[in-house]
Each structure stands twice: as C-alpha cells, then as structure tokens.
C-alpha cells in the first residue's frame, strides 16, 4: 500500500507536485496517468525516497520507506531504463543490488529468466536497446519480491511481446496481493491492465477511482451521425448544451443529446440519416478531456 498525504515538491519557484493526496491499495493494478511534466516521475522518486518532499508525507506499506529495515522486501521500483551501469553486465547490475539484501545468485538468475534476459545476462548493459534496458530495470524492481511495485512507464520501448509480458506480469503481481502502481502515457495500455486510476495534471490530483468511474464521469456520451445534409442537420440540432462538430466529411459528432432525439429531429425535418451511432468515450478520450486544461506543454501547432 502507498499512502500519499499532502505531498508537495518545489524546485525553486516551480511547483512540480502540489498537495497531492491519494492511496494505492494492494491487490489491484493502479494506473498513474498525466501529461508530460505533470509530476508523475517526481512523485515516484519521492515514493522511493530519492527526492525529499518539500512538505507532506509518503508511506509505503504503512512505513516511512527510507527508514525500512529491509527496503527490497518493501518496494521495488523502475524509474527509467537508464538507471543501470553500462560497464556492468546485466547479471552484475542485478547482483550488486541483490547483495544489499542478502539475495542469492539463484534469485538473480530467476529474475533474469523471468525478464527474458538469459541470453544477454553476461553482456555489458551499455550495449542494450531501450527495450532490453527496460526489461533489466523491471527485473531489478522484482528482485526482492517486494510488497509494493512502482514502475515508471514500463512499456516504453518494448515490442508487442514485451508489452504483453508486462501486462500479464502486473496482473499476476496484483493477484499475489502486492501493490502495483504503474505510470503510462498509453491509455489503451492502462485500459487493459489497470482497474484503478490516479490522474495527475500540473502536479495536482485530477481524479482517483476505478477505470469505469473515470470514463463515466469524465465524458459526455456522444453520437456519431452520417448524413449528406450536415449543415442543415447541424443548424437544426444547435441548442444550448449541445455541441455539433463537423470535420468536413459527411460525419457529425454530436454531444449533449441522445441518438433518439437526433433521429426524431431528422425525421421531422425530412433529412436523410445513413448512420446514427452512440459512442462511448475511450479511456484515451476521457483522459484528454480531464487533462486538457492542465497540459503544460501544448504542441507548437495548437499554441
């Protein structure tokens, strides 16, 4: 379990994490979402005790992590793929970490096998691809069979096979009763893996809850309408609280009303409708919707 209470981190006059409070429960996979620069990595570094909070507290399994007697049994963390020594082999990188907790070579070989690194275990990590570095980082996080696993963008740089591996791994860790907290910018990936979500924007908590709640609360259901009379139907539907978006094709994207009302209105005005499809927002859309106000670095074109 991870308990975060009033967590704040300031670098000079820039606030990276702002009075963040949430709880990550054991037994489920909790996703950590937010645009770049939202403070996800900073939060994860504070969980591991690498960055000191300006104020607020972090508790891992009910304890202050830097004071833990057996840190590797409490928390395993992947911060980024480049937290390995390029001059050491994969095995020696892991062995050096394992030694601090009295973990033997057998467990080291076990995680090497688990991460699919058996063939390159003796090779210097400096020559690893991003994906292999990521697998090594995940192996390091799992080394101590920790109660709580924190992974920052674990699928970054992984091939589809690796992505599937991570997905199954996270679920099996949660099934064992461990706390699994994982950040990702791939919403589709979160939708398939996480059951709980913590959403962050500009260092502040935007939402916490189940994936279904998040999608349900964040979106107004929309209706996709295909008609040759886009302009007339659009004018007909226009009303306060209803938005009609036409991207120049024969498709209208209508929110704020139902498919039944659109169909009835079109029938009364004798406008042909070829398609009338209620749409459910994907996690991706829900995410974009709740975070659009807090995106700090807009792409240049939208500025």
């Amino acid at each position: 379990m991870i308990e975060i209470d009033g967590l704040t981190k300031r670098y000079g006059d820039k606030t990276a994490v702002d009075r963040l409070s949430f709880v990550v429960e054991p037994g489920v996979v909790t996703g950590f979402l937010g645009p770049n620069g939202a403070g996800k990595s900073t939060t994860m570094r504070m969980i591991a005790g690498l960055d000191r909070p300006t104020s607020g507290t972090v508790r891992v399994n009910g304890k202050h992590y830097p004071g833990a007697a057996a840190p590797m049994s409490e928390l395993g963390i992947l911060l980024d793929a480049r937290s390995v020594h390029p001059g050491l082999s994969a095995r020696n990188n892991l062995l050096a970490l394992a030694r601090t907790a009295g973990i033997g070579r057998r467990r080291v070989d076990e995680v090497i096998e688990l991460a699919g690194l058996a063939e390159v275990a003796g090779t210097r990590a400096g020559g690893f691809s991003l994906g292999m570095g990521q697998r090594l980082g995940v192996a390091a996080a799992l080394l101590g069979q920790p109660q709580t696993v924190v992974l920052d963008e674990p699928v970054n740089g992984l091939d589809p096979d690796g992505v599937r591996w991570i997905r199954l791994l996270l679920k099996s860790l949660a099934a064992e009763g461990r706390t699994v907290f994982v950040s990702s910018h791939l919403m589709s990936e979160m939708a398939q893996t996480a059951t709980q979500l913590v959403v962050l924007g500009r260092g502040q908590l935007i939402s916490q809850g189940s994936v279904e709640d998040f999608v349900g609360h964040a979106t107004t259901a929309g209706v996709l309408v295909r008609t040759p009379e886009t302009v007339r139907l659009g004018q007909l539907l226009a009303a306060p609280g209803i938005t009609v978006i036409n991207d120049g094709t024969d498709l209208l994207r209508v929110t704020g009303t139902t498919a039944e009302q659109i169909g009835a209105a079109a029938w009364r005005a004798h406008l042909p409708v070829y398609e009338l499809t209620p749409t459910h927002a994907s996690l991706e859309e829900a995410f974009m919707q709740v975070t659009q106000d807090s995106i700090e670095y807009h792409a240049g074109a939208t500025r």
Partner: protein
Amino acid sequence: MNAVTGTRPAPTPTSAPATVAGPVSQVRVVRAEWTKLRALRSTWWCALTAVVLIIGVGALVAGSGTAYHVSAANTAAAGISTALLGVLFAQLVLGVVGVLAFSGEYGTGMIRATLAVVPARLPVLWAKLIVLAGLVLPVTLLCAVIDFFAATAIESSRGGSAISLTDPGVLRTVAGSSLYLTVVVIIGLALGALLRKTAAGLSVFAAVFFVIPVVVSTLPHNITGFAPYLPSNAGGALWGLSATSAHALSPWTGFAVLCGYAVVLIGLAAWRLRRRDA
C-alpha cells in the same frame, strides 16, 4: 472533476506476499560495492597502470644516473623515497578510480537504483570507502615492497649502498607511500560524491594534487608559508617526498594533515549525500 475516493474495491490479501529480501546491513552493502568495483574493467586497468607506474618508474630511477651512496646528507630513507617516484604518477590513476566510484554512478543513473535499495544512503558511502581502501592499501603496499627490493637490488648491482628495510625511516617511507595513496583515493571518492560529475571531480583532483603544488613551488618563498599544508606536500612528508624541503612538516604530522583533509571532504560528501535529491 472531483476525485472519486473510497469507492474502489480493496481485496485484502490473506497473507503478506512472499519475499526473499533480508534487511540491509553494512556488510551486505560492502559486498554489493565490491561486486561493482570488481566487475568494472576500469578498476583493473587503473590498478594495473598504478602497479606498472610504481614499480616501473622505481626501477628506471634506480637504474639511471649515478649509483646512490648513503651519507649524512643522503639518508637511506631519502634514497627509497626517490625510488618511489612512481607514486606521484600512480596517484592520478588511483584518483580517477576514487572519483569514478561515485561520479560513474551519477553519470550513468545507476545511483538511483543504488540509493533506492539502500535508502539510508550513508552505508553506500562507507561501503565504497571500505572497498576502495581495502583494494588500494594492499595492492600499493605490495607494489611499494616489490619496488623497494627491485630498486635496492639494482642499486647494489651498480655499486650503490645496500639499503635495508630496517634502516632508519625506510619502512616508514615504503609503508607510508601506500598509506598516502590510500588516503588520496578516499579524497578522490569524496570529490566524486560532492561534485557528482566525472569531469569536475577529476579537474579538481588534478588541480589540487598536480597543478597547485607546481605553481606554488615557483612562487617566492615569503608568500608560500602554506605550501607544506597542501595535501600532496603534507602527505608527501610521510614517504619523504618533501623531506628535503626546509619547511616540511614532520612525517606523521604531515600525514595527519592529509587525513584531516580527507575527513573534512568525506564529512561534506556524507552531508550532501544525505541532504540532496539523488
């Protein structure tokens, strides 16, 4: 968007998940640091270079110039000190090993993995200090002893005085060169931890042990009263490097001054390691 809290199902695990990890201890962290140091190629290249420099330069000095004759002005200890000239070059190589022990981890990002598994942090500093001193002290002591026997054998074969380890100050000079190099490595370690960048650490190290002593030696004597207190000169007093200089500190006072620098720098490094974000 309001936060939805307290609605998630929280399955309570029947028992705590299995683990293989035991508590962190200083001994375990030392073993971890030894695993790293031993597996890095740079360690062994630097160690080999230091060995070649100490013994090779010593043999070269003993075999060149006029044979050394012990007299009131030319003590046995001073003769051995000259044969240990290679220590001056070896210290740069060993300083690199010291600086890299920390700056190498900051540069590659491994420090985050290291400090995440030892969140108390200070055991990492002590462990690096122990493994570096534990490697450098015996290796350089062996080098100095081999250098002593090689140099004295070459000198006597050329008709110079026979010098024995029991002659006044000789044992202190031989062992002192090794103690000196060990403290130099620790100063390098502290600089690496303090400055975090390899280039910065090496620059400061080279400035303190090479550039500043040379520059100071060219200045007028009336403004260089502090010269004996420079780390290299103070430490050099123990193995006879600066024994010929009129203002040199006594051997053990000089060594104590060098150790004082090391203690202060390690103290600052410990403070910074504890306080600063990794």
